[in-house]
């Protein structure tokens, strides 16, 4: 086989199949023309073809210049683009239009949806209210899960009889479907059929109804959420705990270091990263809390979260673009929070 030199760079105007710069240029022009001149349904396909053309030019280019690494990841990138990035951009675009999925008309309104969800005296009030509730749930559910998960991990890091079986039992809630857990907890809390009210009625002699006020309803949801997701935190922390080399503890024991100090200087540095990871995952998830609220309270007793509110607006009421605007405000908040958190976490780890 003769060694081929890679083809010389082609000029911008050469109509070659691997001229990706020209392809992008043509694609962008076609997209612009199509969106301006054609009806939306036809423009959609023109834009699609243009995107495919650009993608094809990249592939041919990679093949001719033998960027095989790039070629190998191309399918993954294509899937990511089609399934993930494209819908994301599409919904971002929709948030600038007045569009309802059950109506055929669409109209450009600029930032009006954002103005509405942030300042309109009816819509914005409901959004802020749901957002504050969500923040409350984030704080309560995440701290409950972190504490319980951490304590469980400390427990299971030790050896004791039946540990393996108990571990499986403790992990079960995480594997159950949320709907099953939700239905289970509605019965658990039910004042007529539920065991909680049964026990409390017998203890106090009074009718006990957990979910008829905000404190009770929030406590009920937080408990159910912690029940399901503490094992997840536990798993992560446990992985950190078992990775601590035994000899460190042995050396500490020889030096007669107190248990408290052993924890902070030996154990904690090993699990800190994983704790942070658990915190990050759970915070993002808690921000999206909707399923348990729907199952347990339907948002009653001041438990409406922003996610459930969003489901009602975007799915039930078909206010697609308003829903998209809320989603992007939410996304923005989550990104800011996550970055703030990562920044703080990094600063602390550099400080020690």
């Amino acid at each position, binding site marked *: 086989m003769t060694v081929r030199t890679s083809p010389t760079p082609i000029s911008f105007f050469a109509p070659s199949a691997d001229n990706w710069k020209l392809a992008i240029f043509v694609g962008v022009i076609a997209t612009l023309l199509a969106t301006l001149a054609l009806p939306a349904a036809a423009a959609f396909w023109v834009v699609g073809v243009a995107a495919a053309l650009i993608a094809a030019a990249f592939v041919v280019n990679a093949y001719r210049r033998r960027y095989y690494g790039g070629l190998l990841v191309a399918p993954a990138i294509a899937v990511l683009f089609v399934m993930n990035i494209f819908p994301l951009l599409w919904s971002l675009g929709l948030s600038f239009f007045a569009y309802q*999925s*059950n*109506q*055929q008309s669409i109209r450009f309104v600029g930032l009006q949806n954002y103005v509405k969800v942030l300042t309109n005296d*009816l819509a914005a009030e409901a959004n802020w209210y749901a957002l504050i509730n969500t923040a409350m749930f984030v704080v309560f559910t995440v701290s409950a899960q972190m504490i319980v998960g951490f304590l469980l991990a400390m427990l299971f890091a030790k050896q004791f009889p039946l540990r393996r079986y108990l571990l499986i039992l403790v992990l079960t809630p995480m594997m159950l479907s949320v709907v099953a857990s939700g239905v289970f907890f*509605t019965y658990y809390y*039910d*004042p*007529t*059929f539920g065991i909680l*009210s049964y026990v409390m009625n017998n203890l106090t002699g009074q*009718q006990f*109804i957990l*979910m*008829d006020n905000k404190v009770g*309803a929030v406590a009920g949801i937080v408990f159910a959420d912690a029940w399901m997701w503490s094992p997840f935190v536990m798993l992560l922390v446990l992985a950190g705990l078992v990775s601590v080399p035994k000899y460190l503890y042995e050396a500490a024991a020889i030096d007669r270091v107190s248990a408290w100090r052993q924890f902070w200087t030996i154990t904690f540095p090993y699990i800190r990263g994983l704790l942070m990871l658990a915190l990050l995952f759970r915070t993002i998830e808690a921000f999206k809390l909707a399923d348990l609220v729907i199952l*347990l*309270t*339907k*948002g*009653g*007793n001041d438990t409406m979260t922003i996610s459930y509110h969003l489901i*009602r607006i975007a*799915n*039930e*009421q*078909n206010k697609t673009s308003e829903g998209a605007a809320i989603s992007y405000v939410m996304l923005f908040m989550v990104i800011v929070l996550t970055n703030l958190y990562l920044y703080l976490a990094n600063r602390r780890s550099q400080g020690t």
Partner: protein
Amino acid sequence: MTVMTKMKAFATAAGFAATLMVGGASMASAEEVTLTMAVPDWPPTRIMKKFFDEQYKPKSGNTVKLDVDFIPWPDFYTRVNASLTSGEQKYNFIVSDSQWLGAFVEGGYFRKINDLLEADPDFMATFKSIHPNPLNAYSTYPHKSENYYGFPQFPDVLVNFARADILCHEEEQKNFQAKYGKKLPCTGEELDAMTWDDFRNVGEFFMRKKGDMLAGKPAEDDFYGIAYQAGKGYDFSSMQINGFIWQMGGNTWDETQAPKGQAEGVVNSPEAVKALEKYLDMIQFMPPVAKTGTMDIFKSDELFREGKVAMNIDWIGLGEASLDPKTSKVSDKLVFGQMPGTMGPDGKMIRWSNIGGQPFVLTTWTTDAQIKEAVEFVKWWLSPEIQHQFAAGGGQSAIKSVYEDPKYVTYRPWNRAWAPQLDWQKDVWHVPQFFELLTQQQDQFDLAITGKQDAKTTLDNIAKFQQNLLKEAGLIE
């Protein structure tokens, strides 16, 4: 591949395609037509599918298949809505709650059927034999206009489910008479004659703690007088409260009066406030779950079947389970009557109630060949013979000749309440803004039910919201 082989391959493919087309055309005399249908998964639709598979013989000689997607109730709206708005055009028939008509007609998904009715006098005659109240609720958009869309699949009304064993007990009868100076209703006719005040008395009378005497025995558990829907989800309080408001002289926003009809001043009229107060007042006599805002139609039904309440107002659609010993602890102790009413000034009972049940509708992308078969299928479905079988199997019929047949009341114990209640059915909001109106109203009613705000504030908030929304939509001038 050379140019020649390419040409050959092309020719072969073209020939193959042509054969297929010719073959297809020659088969046209006995076509296979598939009608796809989205339905909620429960007995009335299962029965429909069963009857179709076992009995339906299309007159055209074609092979007609009914391909039914049984979707669980809690997901039903979401799935149907997603299917329609995504444009996948999957279903020819869709079972729809009557209030969805506006949204889906305006979206261009539901097909107007006036042309089909006019083209077929038989079909028209069958269609017109449906009681006018369900016909208006299930088929017309704008409401009560001459534009028709749907056919009854399972028509439904609210009825009173009651415990004969407790209500007819001698001791209870005596004590009730002594306390209220009235006879404790025990038979179907006596239930029919009940007003909401009587219902309240029953509620108050039957509040028993565990160990108290109940129908001659100590109660095994706490027992409650009454139940009706008071939940935050979907329409699980509006459907009951609307009846209260209409019976007591108030009104909801009337879509047939658009754009002249107002929401403010109507929705929160003093009569409506009084009606809501009456509704809220009875919650204290219900199982405690009502105070959490999750007492929906399924919960009150479950409480009734578990033997925790004396009377429950619920849809007939949920009734079957209460008669089945496998799902009901009280299956052999029941009596049914009409939902309580309000005594008018002229001494006649006013019984307005919000209609339940669902129509099924045709979609706009259904082809001519499918429509032909669909019409035949609907005619068959609405024919008295099949409607009788449906009712005997646990369904209900809104066809006049069927429910007026003396046999009809023998099918199920609640059927005696069916025909008289039909005359009193109304419906709300077939407009595209239905879901926004409903969620806001349900949220507000929930605040009232859980004791966070009074009836007046609740209805004021609702009226203000509706006025605002409907004005923006051009439905109020």
